[in-house]
């Protein structure tokens, strides 16, 4: 608990209702999309960059940890306040400040929900491609802080590829504005890139300047069924190797499909080992159709059982709904799941999938496999019950082996969720000592008191 004086100082910054500290309020800001929990000492809901700056100044003076939070959908326990402090929640900073059609740029506050931004720019005939499956329940600030990706990142790139500029409040309360509406800007270090993916440890992002592109007018979306995981993996590689760049190339294994079907009743196939969701898009209808045909042809060659192209927008929407629901739908199978997001170079995709399968067989706990196969980003999800300490021990071993496999295949620990608290222990293994050391020094330089999201990313 913070003392009354500090609470009232905070409230004088935010106004009434902007500071909460009842036990009930604290409980609901103690978790994110993982099973980890911590308890903040206060919840603060600012309305402006100015509010945030004053809050951080006060926190710095009082040495109170500040844990930034968007919608708490994170999958690395990044916004879980393990050391208490202020859960600084940006959801009420949700204004779209500007959609500059002429320059194809949007300026938004950090708390804007990603899907709301997408809907708004679409009205202006533009497109903001980064589409984490959590787009309806995560914020731009959270997306930038985690450098979120999504199914369409195969062709269009990740959040960071669209960040032109940021406004961030630093650990001493000063406001940093970096970047501009220019696509090219090479004056000094690229600080926006430094803050992108910084998971709330370097500053509080309060505004973002985002690049937009022309809306792709045409889509073709196909669901391809395979009787073996290996066949699907080979098809992914073969499609990419043939030079086709689908907008998305997503994989779901049989358990993933079964869980979604159980909840949504979309008529998905239940008798196949794996499916690929392939989408092509662009401004030329014939080219888009040709691309899906080529991809289909390659899938057939690799042994696809069936292939169905969505006949209309409703069918396409249903396929995407299915894909986006996979992660949460797994909750049907077990009280807990641990989903990783290991990523490997595309050539290693089939091998990575074989390794995951081997880990599953070795330990006997179910692993569901799905993910953005096209960019090598896989989501093996281990299903378990955390109340059983034996199971938890096994899970930890399995995760370590998954990470090892990814690194051995020249891949990485995390393609999109970030390190947060969950992957800290493996950081150095992934980065090597030099990079780790430099990163720690950057953190120290920007946050010498270690009040911004302490304990995240770096092992204690």
């Amino acid at each position, binding site marked *: 608990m913070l003392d009354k004086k500090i609470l009232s100082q905070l409230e004088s910054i935010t106004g009434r209702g902007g500071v909460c500290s009842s036990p009930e309020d604290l*409980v609901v800001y103690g978790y994110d*999309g993982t099973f980890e929990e911590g308890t903040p000492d206060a919840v603060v809901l600012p309305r402006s960059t100015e509010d945030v700056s004053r809050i951080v100044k006060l926190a710095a003076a009082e040495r109170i940890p500040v844990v930034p939070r968007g919608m*708490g959908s994170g999958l690395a326990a990044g916004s879980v306040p393990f050391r208490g402090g202020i859960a600084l*929640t940006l959801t009420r900073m949700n204004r779209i400040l500007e959609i500059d059609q002429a320059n194809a740029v949007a300026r938004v506050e950090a708390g804007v929900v990603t899907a709301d931004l997408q809907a708004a720019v679409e009205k202006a005939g533009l497109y903001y491609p980064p589409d984490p499956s959590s787009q309806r*329940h*995560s914020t731009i600030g959270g997306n930038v802080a985690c450098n979120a990706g999504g199914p369409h990142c195969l062709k269009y790139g990740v959040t960071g590829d669209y960040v032109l500029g940021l406004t961030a409040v630093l650990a001493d309360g000063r406001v940093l504005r970096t970047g501009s509406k220019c696509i090219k800007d090479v004056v000094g270090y690229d600080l926006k890139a430094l803050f992108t993916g910084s998971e709330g440890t370097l500053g509080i992002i309060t505004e973002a300047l985002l690049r937009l592109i022309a809306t792709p007018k045409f889509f073709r979306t196909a669901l391809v069924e395979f009787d073996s995981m290996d066949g699907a993996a080979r098809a992914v590689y073969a499609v990419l190797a043939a030079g086709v760049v689908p907008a998305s190339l997503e994989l779901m294994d049989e358990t993933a499909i079964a869980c979604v079907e159980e*909840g949504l009743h979309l008529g998905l196939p239940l008798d196949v080992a794996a499916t690929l969701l392939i989408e092509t898009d662009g401004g030329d209808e014939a080219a888009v159709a040709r691309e899906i045909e080529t991809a289909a042809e390659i899938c057939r060659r690799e042994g696809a059982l069936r292939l169905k192209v969505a006949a209309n927008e409703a069918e396409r929407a249903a396929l995407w709904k299915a894909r986006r*629901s996979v992660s*949460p739908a797994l909750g049907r199978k077990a009280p807990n799941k641990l989903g990783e997001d290991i990523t490997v170079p595309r050539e290693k995709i089939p091998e990575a999938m074989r390794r995951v399968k081997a880990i599953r067989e070795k330990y006997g706990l179910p692993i569901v496999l799905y993910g953005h196969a096209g960019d090598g980003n896989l989501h093996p999800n281990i299903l378990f019950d955390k109340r059983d300490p034996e199971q938890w021990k096994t899970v930890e071993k399995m995760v370590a082996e998954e990470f090892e496999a990814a690194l051995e295949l020249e891949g990485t620990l995390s393609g999109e969720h970030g390190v947060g608290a969950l992957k800290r222990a493996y950081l150095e293994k992934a980065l090597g000592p030099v990079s780790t050391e430099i990163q720690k020094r950057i953190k120290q330089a920007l946050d010498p008191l270690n009040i911004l999201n302490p304990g995240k990313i770096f092992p204690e």
Partner: protein
Amino acid sequence: MPIPDLPPLPSEAEYLNCIRCGLCLAVCPTYRESLHEIASPRGRLMLARKGLQGELDLRSNLYEQMYACFDCLACNEVCPVGIRPADLAVEMRRVQEQAGPQFWKKVVFNRFLQNPDWLEAATLPVRLYERLGIRGLVHALGLQKILPRRLRDMEAMLPRAPRRPLRQILPEVTSAGGESKRRVGFFLGCAQNLMYADESAAAVRVLARNGSTVVTPKDVVCCGMPARSYGRMEDARAQARRNIELFETADVETVVTDCATCGATLKSYGAFLGDDPVWAERAAAFSAKIRDVSEFLLSIPMENPAKRIAARVTYHDPCHLRRGQGVWKQPRELLKMIGGVEFVELPEADVCCGMAGTQIITHYEMSIKVLMRKLDNLAKTGADCVASGCPVCRMQLTTGLARAGLSMRVTHPVVLLDEAYHSDL
């Protein structure tokens, strides 16, 4: 750790598998307006969980969040895990009420809502307000303007209450217009009976016109939804038994209702009494007979209405009809049957209007915020008339339209249909 002296608690299955993904935040009206996790389904679920697991005190502050839920069912529908946060919030209200019953609730749910005569007597002042011309007087003198905003909203909400409850007017058996093809029961809900009698009268006329002999038992009691919402599950069960019994003697194959909330509740009697060895089967059989009036009409051959109604009409989905019963196509179909009607879809038609039973009284500010969003959407349609199959929604929409100074008729779809059948009207 079990908590001593507590009533039966919701089982772990109701919350354990919530993976906190946050998907439900995207659809929750109270979250959307507050942008505060405590007012979200995931937040409520976690509060309940921590309370039930003994990690958080089960005190009024916690229960308050359960009452702040609109029971709009949007979270139930969206949760990919199959968790039902809305149901758990209502369950928690039961836990609170069983642990420490509140006197006023006992009086309302155990007495008034179980006795139609008492209920009619209790609402007499509202009808007198209308009947004695007080409303007219108040408005002529502009007195409603000096009421505080909140009371003014409530005043506007009161429909033109009928002089007499429909129960006192409608015959027990209304014969079919032509040859009787079937015998159906009609469940006269409290709000319809007392506030929207004309609409239910229209519903019965439309049923009769389409070949149904309509039996309207007079002694039905409240469907049980208010009691359930206020944690008085035992009262709700008692009401269910009473209504089941009544309709068993009515000898009908179908029971029709024109109230979304009653319909959803009657369809749940099977679940309400599922663990009651004497009643389970009867309750399930009764629930299987329930149809919303639009659902029923579209399942039988219908006469095409002759009279044209030239109007732009839109439709608001009551939560308890769309999500509670999966009925949303049918009311739209009914409206489209009417010549001259230009049907326009309402943006976010299926989002709660903010009334949610009694939220405008108990959670006024939130209710108004949610309502304002609905009004923005209504204004976008440019409709002359908004139809909706729930009396409580209609009261709320009436309030909002008055507040916003929009002139738009608010009615039940079946009323428009009834008008279109009467070329002489």
